[in-house]
């Protein structure tokens, strides 16, 4: 079947609906608020060569990092059988950080593997030294159970041993069980649908159109790059501390745009750090792809073609290309946001009338857990903040930006499920940077603990505020503190803390940068 403009559109819809149906299944069957309420997952279809063909993503940080999972699965196994499901979370073998658990299933056309379907979901706890598995760690082993690519399902038969081993390592074994079952259901749905497509359209037509779709997105991305003035653009910003010591950790980028190629070089970025801020290369790629995706048409299909014109260079043993077993727990959430800030900062020099000022630049990760009434509890959430203002107007207030878009957990659901009371959840007035257009305001969220708990906070932009552009002022940096009785304890950007009943945690998230002089 020859590829034309019409069949291209039709097959795009077919491939995307596979990923979409997987996502619907996963969300509906999942247990944890993190997947059901916050939608912290993505699903995608890959060809036999591990090239992404289509995806249904809720989380941009999953965008460019899933192909690495499929590659790792292929590398780990010489052969697959129909009905196999490979599970993994090892950041150094196809993962990003340990809570993001990925499953990969081969889909067969006759005796050969024709496609893969994959799903990735953030599991609220995979063990490690603190509840929520985002600890202030210094090596990967402290962050939780490391799952290399292994067959969770072999030829259609679930390996109970692997399954039980994984759930036993979580602080919420029942919830893990439910979420893993849901992810398996999504894999089944995706594999079955794709198999139907192979049967209905034939392997050849399907692969030809997969190739054509990838080619299509490559052309579209090249057109985006061609519209950026050729040149070299450099920008630097910094993280504030790796959880071990507070210090400036620079991320530096030089982007070289030449006709249709886009080379991103992070030379000049800090060496790898002792703490949990290191980001594996898959995350760096995701963040860079995301930035270019922002410049493309709204409904450009995201697949391998989007990545083709882009090259990414990271110095070895650096923050953005660490050696095993460097700690990586929040490289996924915090470092990824700063990569976006530097890439967009560099692009703003090329496209000064297009690029907005910096958004909050952090996800404000709050995790806590303990035991209450004899039952263990664990909780993870992230908090929105101010968006950068830009040529189109003021920035949004109190929303997630860039590499995440997870929803909040309702206060009423939180108070029902956990020994905590939320004292306030409101906009942080005046925190957006001033300018011709104002940055969006951050959020103030206060938690009163009703039981002792081990609290971990991983946040950034508590010192170096989100930048303004074109004369706009920076947004206000964030702040974390504990109020205990009459006293107040400043937590800094990253902290682990044993809270007592009556303690109140106050998180104030950063405002977005302003755009244009007043």
């Amino acid at each position, binding site marked *: 079947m020859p590829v034309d*403009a019409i069949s291209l559109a039709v097959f795009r819809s077919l491939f995307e609906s596979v990923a979409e149906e997987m996502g619907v299944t996963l969300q509906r069957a999942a247990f944890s608020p993190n997947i059901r309420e916050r939608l912290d997952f993505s699903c995608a279809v890959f060809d036999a060569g591990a090239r992404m063909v289509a995806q249904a993503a809720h989380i941009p940080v999953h965008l460019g990092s899933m192909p690495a999972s499929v590659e790792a699965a292929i590398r780990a196994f010489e052969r697959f059988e129909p009905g196999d499901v490979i599970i993994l979370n090892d950041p150094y073998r196809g993962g990003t950080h340990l809570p993001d658990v990925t499953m990969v299933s081969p889909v067969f056309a006759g005796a050969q593997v024709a496609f893969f379907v994959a799903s990735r979901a953030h599991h609220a706890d995979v063990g490690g030294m603190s509840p929520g598995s985002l600890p202030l760690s210094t090596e990967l082993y402290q962050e939780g159970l490391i799952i290399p690519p292994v067959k969770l399902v072999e030829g259609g038969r679930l390996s109970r041993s692997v399954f039980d081993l994984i759930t036993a390592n979580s602080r919420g074994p029942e919830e893990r069980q439910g979420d893993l079952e849901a992810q398996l259901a999504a894999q089944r749905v995706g594999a079955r649908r794709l198999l139907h497509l192979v049967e209905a359209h034939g392997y050849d037509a399907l692969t030809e159109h997969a190739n054509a779709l990838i080619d299509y997105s490559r052309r579209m991305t090249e057109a985006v790059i061609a519209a950026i003035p050729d040149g070299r653009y450099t920008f630097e910003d910094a993280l504030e501390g790796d959880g071990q010591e507070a210090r400036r950790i620079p991320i530096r980028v030089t982007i070289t745009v030449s006709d249709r190629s886009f080379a991103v070089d992070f030379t000049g970025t800090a060496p790898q750090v002792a703490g949990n801020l290191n980001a594996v290369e898959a995350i760096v790629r995701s963040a860079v792809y995301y930035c270019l995706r922002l410049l493309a048409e709204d409904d450009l299909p995201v697949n391998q073609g989007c990545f083709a014109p882009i090259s990414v260079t990271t110095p070895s043993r650096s923050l953005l290309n660490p050696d095993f077993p460097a700690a990586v727990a929040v490289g996924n959430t915090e470092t990824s946001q700063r990569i976006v800030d530097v890439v967009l900062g560099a692009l703003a020099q090329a496209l000064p009338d297009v690029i907005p000022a910096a958004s909050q630049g952090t996800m404000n990760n709050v995790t806590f857990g303990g035991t209450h009434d004899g039952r263990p509890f664990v909780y993870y959430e992230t908090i929105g903040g101010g968006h950068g203002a830009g040529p189109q107007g003021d920035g949004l207030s109190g*929303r997630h930006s860039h590499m995440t878009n997870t929803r909040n957990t309702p206060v009423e659901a939180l108070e029902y499920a956990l020994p905590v009371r939320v004292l306030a959840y409101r906009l942080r007035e005046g925190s957006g940077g001033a300018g011709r257009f104002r940055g969006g305001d951050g959020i103030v969220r206060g938690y009163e603990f009703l039981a002792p708990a081990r609290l971990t906070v991983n946040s950034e932009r508590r010192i170096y505020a989100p930048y303004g552009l074109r004369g706009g002022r920076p947004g206000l940096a964030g702040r974390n503190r504990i109020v205990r009785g009459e006293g107040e304890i400043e937590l800094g950007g990253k902290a682990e803390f044993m809270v007592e009943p009556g303690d109140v945690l106050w998180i104030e998230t950063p405002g977005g940068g302003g755009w244009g002089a007043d």
Partner: protein
Amino acid sequence: MFTGVDIGGTFTDFVAVDNGRLRIHKQLSTPDDPARAMLFGLAELSGGDLTAIARLAHGSTVATNAILERKGARAAFLTTEGFRDILAIGRQNRPRLYALQPQLPPPLIPRELCFEVRERLDFQGRVLKPLDYTALDATLDTLKAQGVESVAVCLLHSYANPVHEQAVRQRAVERGCFQPEQIVLSSDVLPQFREYERASTTALEAYVRPVVGRYLRRLEAALPPSLPLSMMKSDGGTFSAAAARQLAAHTALSGPAAGVIGAFHLAQLAGFDRIITLDMGGTSTDVALCPGEPVLRAESEIDGLPLRVRLLDIETVGAGGGSIARIDAGGALRVGPESAGADPGPVAYGRGGDRVTVTDANVVLGRLDPAYFLGGGMSLDTAAATAAVERLAGLLGMDVESAALGVLEVANSNIERALRRVSVARGHDPRAFTLMAFGGAGPLHACDVAARLQIPRVLVPRYPGVLCAFGLLVADVRLDYSRSVLGPLTAETVQALRAHINDLEAEARAALDAEGVAEPEMIFRPSVDMRYQGQAYELSVPYGDDLAERFHRLHEQTYGHALRDRAVEVVTLRLEATCITRKPALEPELLEANAAPSARIGQRADGVAIYLREKLSPGSAFHGPALVVQLDSTVYVAPGWSARVDAYRNLILEPA
């Protein structure tokens, strides 16, 4: 005489059933005063005697438009101290994943009109901090001074205990600041946990209630007092104007509901009770699955704002007759969601539209015939449409016909995706269903869409263009009640549930009595939203013995697994109260096998036969390719398909 009236932006449609026969009427709408078009049409239908009308149900987009156009009431929002920005923060996610500067639609209630109340409950409804009346009084005075028309009140955990919300209303009334109906309590509107969704639903109610109230007053003033007016809800039921004044937001998503109700009723009469509806209009297509009955869902939104009223489970896709085709920068053909609308409309309308639409592709392919379009009442510029499609074909490097077919193929594949979402993705095999096609363009696309999903049969009702008005005629009165009952499933919980059900039934019975339906037949269906402890979402289980086992089974059926050793929680008790209305009887006619010779009014050079719908008698049968033309739509019978007319004058299309 029973009458259904569907008030749309352009046309007001009427359907009446009198002595077992259907009659239809179409009237230009009068948006400045919808009553004018309504009265004029009713007079037409009833021969000037409005007392001949026994029941009048109508559907209106007054609430929908007030929200979409931000022309609602000046409303304020009151909430618990610390949470002023619930409405602004929402679920803290942005509407689009990949946007340089994501934008939100303007809020219904500006921040200046959002206020905090000093009080606090815990999740069990216990008072942690009593209501501070001094501060409340000052706020109420401010609201009054600000000229606020309605106030949404949503306090934390009010689903568990409405005491503070009710105290706010009482104070506002006692202080002379507001009338009771101006204060909208979240514990009345949606007594369920999850504060943002409840706040949003409450704010929407406060925003549209005054508007809907004014609209209904005007309408009622124009109608004889003996003629009770009822209104379509989002769940496909109707309620009286009096009830609509208190639950105005329940009408905001009612637009496509009546069509599904009408379609299902007709399909059942015709002997098909598993249908998928395909309602294709100018800018979009609505599809819904009815596996034995229409399906409801509890989660919905309007303009990005959660509106937690029960509504028919309808998927909408931006593919309609006016959807624009274009080639994008990567060389793929796109159709929609951009639409040429009614103005300028498709190129073939000759009103200045110069971009190829789905309608133009149908004109070029001869599926819309200029000689018979809308009964010949509107001309089609075939030459202009052809020239436009030719330009597109040149860019695609193909001939005109292939390009036109391509436009339809892309549009139909978008529709297919929506159909898959309502069927396959929810565990239903479309091959076991009948596709019910209506709306102006549904019958044109039905054969192609059915073939894509191997749906074995298409049903086209006698009047596909006014099916919504028909749905209004046959809709039952329906009222919904809910109560939050958050807690583990224990023997005490079950007892408490029983007591709540009795309370709610008494409340529902009184309300249905007030609806004034003659010879009422009431049905109460209690159900319980349940989940496993630790799960974040619920399944709605019909109430009955052994709730836990019912839940396990439903969970297994829905998600493929049950966790029988896990504790089960109850979250919300619901009661659906239905009053079955007397349906206008449609009489089947005798079938007389024939090849429809008198209805066959032409045979085109391309082999397509043309049939006049109004002359097709029950029992007529013929083969595609054929067009069946009628005032409100055109039916395309594809080559390889056969068509027959059933005893209710539905067209039934099947692959030959």
